[in-house]
């Protein structure tokens, strides 16, 4: 915590407020998404980021525009932190023509290459080799970007993970491997699926520098990410950052959560990253309760307007079904 306090002092108030706004926005977006799902307006599967907001916001607050970002299917918060406007996210969740992928992608496949955000991926671990490829291309072209590849603890038990980590070391690729350890791979606890409980130990096996940090404190995440990205940038070689976090909701909507106790969830809710950060901002005198309440109202307003935009948007036209199958068509 001492380190976090130092970070608060060195961050300007504008950035602190932006961080708070973004985390609150992601939370509000997810609550609204759950609501829209219950109303039957979002179909399929919905994986909420509630509880993990500090990870994406802390991490991506220190990325540079040339840094590439990829993540798994729990991607709404990452999309927002990469700069996609909330209205295009909600429009995509509703499958509208105005969505960020024009209704073809949906919840798990938000992306915007103009923001160097290469998307969410629904096949666990499948995007890790892609991230290594993007980093290889940067290296080949002599460009300065770092590829930030986010994935869950569950992905570290699949072959892609091991191949990609190995390759990134063998080929000296500028990748920040970021494991969001939310302690469950779907409904299976880490210790029931992974031979090591500290995921960072897997990076040790590849001789990759690594660390494990608390993911409920946005400033701690930000500080660690800054250091890790600095390492990759300076050395042109990978770094492994394990961020311990917790999802407050089920794996996806409709998950009966038989695999964990309510007490455990309640305990983690005490460490709510938004509450912690809010308290921090008030305790350090950076902002008053009123200041933050105004920000929260702005967030509510922003999400309400985004829902309005999405609901008023047209469905995709039927001819779009056959568009973009091939790059030249």
């Amino acid at each position, binding site marked *: 915590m001492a380190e976090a306090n130092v970070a608060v002092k060195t961050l300007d108030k504008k950035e602190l407020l932006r961080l708070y706004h973004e985390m609150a926005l992601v939370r509000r977006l997810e609550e609204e998404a759950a609501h829209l799902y219950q109303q039957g307006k979002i179909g399929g599967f919905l994986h909420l980021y509630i509880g993990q907001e500090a990870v994406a916001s802390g991490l991506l607050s220190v990325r540079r525009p040339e840094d590439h970002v990829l993540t798994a299917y729990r991607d709404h918060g990452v999309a927002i932190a990469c700069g996609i406007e909330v209205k295009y996210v909600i429009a995509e969740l509703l499958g509208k023509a105005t969505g960020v*992928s024009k209704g*073809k992608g949906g919840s798990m496949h938000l*992306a915007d290459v103009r923001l160097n955000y290469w998307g969410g991926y629904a096949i666990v671990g499948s995007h890790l080799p892609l991230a290594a*490829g993007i980093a290889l291309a940067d290296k080949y072209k002599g460009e300065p970007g770092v590829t930030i590849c986010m994935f869950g603890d569950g992905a570290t038990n699949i072959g892609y993970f091991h191949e990609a980590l190995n390759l990134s070391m063998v080929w000296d690729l500028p990748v920040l491997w970021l494991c969001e350890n939310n302690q469950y791979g779907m409904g299976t606890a880490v210790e029931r699926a992974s031979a090591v409980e500290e995921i960072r130990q897997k990076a040790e096996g590849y001789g990759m520098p690594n660390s494990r940090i608390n993911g409920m404190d946005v400033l701690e995440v930000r500080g660690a990410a800054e250091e890790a990205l600095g390492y990759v940038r300076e050395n042109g070689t990978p770094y492994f950052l394990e961020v311990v976090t917790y999802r407050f909701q089920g794996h996806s909507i409709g998950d009966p959560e038989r695999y964990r106790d309510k007490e455990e969830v309640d305990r983690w809710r005490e460490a709510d990253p938004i509450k912690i950060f809010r308290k921090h901002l008030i305790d350090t005198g950076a902002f008053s309760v009123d200041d933050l309440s105004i920000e929260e109202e702005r967030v509510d307003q922003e999400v309400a307007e985004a829902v309005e935009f999405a609901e008023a948007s047209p469905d995709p036209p039927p001819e*779009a079904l056959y568009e*973009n199958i*091939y790059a030249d068509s």
Partner: protein
Amino acid sequence: MAEITLIEGLRQGMDEELERDERVFIVGEDVGQRGGVFRATEGLYEKYGEDRIIDSPLAEDSIVGIGIGTALYGMRPICEIQFADFIYPAFNQIVSEAARMCYRSAGEWTVPMVIRVPYGGGIGGGLYHSQSVEAFFAHVPGLKVVVPSTPYDAKGLIKSSVRDPGPVIFLEPKRGYRLIRGEVPEDEEVLVPIGPARISRTGTDLSVFAYGMMHHYCLEAAERVAQEGINAEVIDLRTLKPVDRQTILASVAKTGRALIVHEDNLTGGYGAEIAAILAEEAFGDLDAPVRRLAGPDVPAMPYSHPFESWFMPDADRIAKAILELAAF
């Protein structure tokens, strides 16, 4: 004009594309220092260096996954899968990622990559070094599937595939690498477009559709039956996806009979698609049922030489099928 082998045509094509565009690079197992297990990339490592001819770990899903990542970000990878039989670890990357990227991003991202895949039997490779995999990939929208059977087409199609804005599965009939020779001009650029089939022998009595090594056996069979007065038209499909429906339908409109030959096993094989096209669109032109001659429905090509020759259709069996069909 120089006479070269199929693999030499391929190598020349890759060399020219590497020379032309520095975004092009090759990645695969032993493609660099060793020059490829079949020597398809021989000399390229020495010429272009280790940054462009990259030896990868033995991990096919990574070879393709890395390729996709670089292609998304503006490179032009040629990924080599050493044997078609080894492609399955990469199946997810090809089908779930490469083929869908353009679609899922509503046209915003493309994956200009070539996946080179030596395939097919006839080299005594046994169960895990002999398979044909075209039917799996021809089923997938978003992929193009190409199979050259001559040195000219190998060169011209690999060059077009490198320049294609999307993912191309490039199947190489490995038995023909050194067996098949042909003339390729040295003083002009050879480019063969993806898509059109080629009528390699014109005829009037029936149409024979094939690709890869089988195309050569079909030509041989057609010459044999010509001595018995049967004039077969032979068509080298060259591109399996998107397939050249026009050439197929025009040929059958002329001959009224169709034989499809492939070495992959019969059920659910690529020939079924050609048969379906003819059933749906050429019913009125047909004077006989569409006939397929293909590998048997056994799990893989067995090792011993007699097994292998029973598995693979050859000129004898093709000639017999032609005569039966002509007599229908």
